[in-house]
């Protein structure tokens, strides 16, 4: 389930992930909750993700609250060009702890990372907040596609790990996985 302030790019990230396209032009705001399916091949299994895309506006909160408790994973987005949306993530995390399951997978995502000029929230700030709440963190760009695939992959892996859990399996940590994968990408860039 994608949550976060209005206009941070929840629908754009999802459409980039699902259809590989960037929704440019007019601002399409979600009304209520949108529902999409995507089947993700993971190693030898297939994970079916049911993705809820929520409206960020205050008036839809009561609707989204009802669906928190069914969510296995929450992607909390903010906009790196809007300090305000970042400040609000604490309130969102508060809501999550109130309405969602205790063991829900939470990932904090700073979107619009391609907009270097207008950036108001540093990468480190996001990282620090994520560490404080012990949630995974990454920055994405729906426009360039950066890290979008990775974000959903990481969540899918974590969910699969939880579902199939064998006591003998090595422990899977979404935080570690994200760190590892993004480093791999970064080094790939440099070489």
């Amino acid at each position, binding site marked *: 389930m994608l949550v976060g302030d209005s206009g941070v790019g929840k629908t754009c990230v999802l459409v980039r992930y699902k259809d590989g396209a960037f929704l440019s032009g007019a601002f399409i705001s*979600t*009304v209520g*909750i949108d*529902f999409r399916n995507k089947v993700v091949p993971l190693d030898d299994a297939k994970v079916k993700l049911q993705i809820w895309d929520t409206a960020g506006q205050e*008036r*839809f909160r009561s*609707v989204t609250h009802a669906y928190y408790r069914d969510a296995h994973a929450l992607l909390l987005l903010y906009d790196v060009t809007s300090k*305000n949306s970042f400040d609000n993530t604490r309130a969102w995390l508060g809501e999550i702890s109130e309405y969602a399951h205790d063991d829900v997978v939470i990932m904090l995502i700073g979107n619009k990372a391609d907009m270097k000029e207008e950036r108001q929230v540093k990468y480190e700030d996001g990282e620090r907040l994520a560490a404080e709440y012990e949630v995974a963190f990454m920055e994405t760009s729906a426009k360039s596609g950066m890290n979008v695939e990775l974000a959903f992959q990481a969540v899918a892996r974590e969910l699969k790990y939880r579902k199939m859990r064998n006591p003998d399996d090595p422990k899977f940590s979404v935080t570690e996985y994200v760190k590892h994968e993004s480093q791999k990408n970064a080094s790939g860039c440099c070489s």
Partner: protein
Amino acid sequence: MATASCKSLEDSETARESEEETEIPKDFEPGASSESILISIDLYEEVENSPGSVYEDVSYRRRKSTICELERSAGKRVLAEEQVETSKSFDDKSQDGQLKAEIGHDESIRIKNSPNVEPIRIEMESIQMSSDEEKHEIIETAEDIHNPEWKQHSKHIFILSEAGKPIYSRFGSEDKLVTLMGVMQALVSIVQDNGDVIRSIHAGDHKFVFLVRLPLILVAVANTNASAPQLVVQLNCVYNLILSVLTSTQLCSIFEQRRNYDLRRLLGGAEKFLDNLVDTMDSDPSFLLVAVRCLPLTSAIRDTISQSIVQYCSKVKNVVFAILVAKNQLVTIVRMKKYSLHPSDLHLVMNLVNSSDSFKAAESWTPICLPKFDSSGFLHAHVSYLDDNCPACLLLLTVDKNLFFTLQECRRKIVERLHRYNCLEAINASLESEGYSVSEVGLPDLRHFIYKSKSAAQFTEPRLEAPYVSNEDQSNLFGLYQYLHHRMYNSARPLKILFYVGQKEIMLSWHMAGFELYAAFEPMVTKFTAVNTMNKLVRWIKKEEDRLFIMNAPTI
């Protein structure tokens, strides 16, 4: 009330009418069926009698809320929610008198360019600085009251709170109009102090129409053909839209807690619904007639569609309405027994679908309040387009907010069955032909018409063709229809039939017990021919009624 001249006019009209009666029975009503899918109402009666304050409305509704009733009947525990609002006495002034201030043209200029202009500018500058964070808003709306373009718009709509806080403006940014809205609030409250309610100000071609629905004030400023009562109807639609987003319960409780609340916070994302509604009302007769346009389909296809919906929705408890719309036209409604939909609620549903692209991409689940059905609470709507290649949108409305997955499955089966019976192709074919041509009627002098079946609350019109091609010509024609409609419904002197010689066409309107008919004719047509043509036209509509109207009202 009836003056001598008025009486003689009416007499001559009844005389003409009796001539026609040899052909058309008095209760003739093509498009009418024994059971209607929509509630039909007399719109002006309703406007006059509606309460001036939502507070009173709420206390009344809470006791007999339709949604509560539905929830109870479903054996669900009714949440011991918000205590019954105590009725406020705000409305005591709304009924007992009306003020229609007729002031001259220079008076209106004083309102617009009052000595307050200086402070306005200063305040605006400070606002501009403080609202830097809302930069996209400032970029897209450079218009304010000093902008000549802003003044040129032919119809403005403003919404403000009782405390004078700006909530919505059709043009320009509300922030920059804060002082103007203050003036509006002052006008309302000055008149209120005298125990009266301001209705309208007429200045030259401009009408300033007020609708006080506490805690909101709605204002229309227009120099179009729309009459003051028609503008009130439009403002009522806008007000209902706000209720559909918030419910009256929420609207009241917010302003009870904080009278100076900035409602834009809660309406976030709903601006485009307001914009779209206000734009549509300038050209769509649905709002003028308080009726619904149906998609022409053969009755066999329509029945198949309805039956498909009934078949699967009847298995789901708590579906109140299933509505299929395509490009602002109604394909069918399936409803729960006992409950009917009001046309203006359906207008809001259609407006929701039309103004949001987000439904096209995914299945949505959204709360919507239908104010005429029950203004105190939300229904929950499963919204989806039938297919990527079919612009028909299916809405399943329920009182149960946990029904998403059930309705998703229900919708899947409905779409499957519609595919099997080639219903999507039929809908697409009808949409592609854009309705029918007036030439199909076979009456050479007839250019265009609008026919409304009163009891069905449905209307039909042919597509606009030459000479109504340009936007200007089309809106002129609509203006003439507005004028006819206003004359026919004029409360001081309602008419049965009106022959009007316009600059470029002859217009004729005709009200019978069962229907309203408005038509445009070639400019040289005689009264006799025009009246004759109207008779033939009504017969033609009768012949085609199965295709043009929804004649049966399936229930679940």
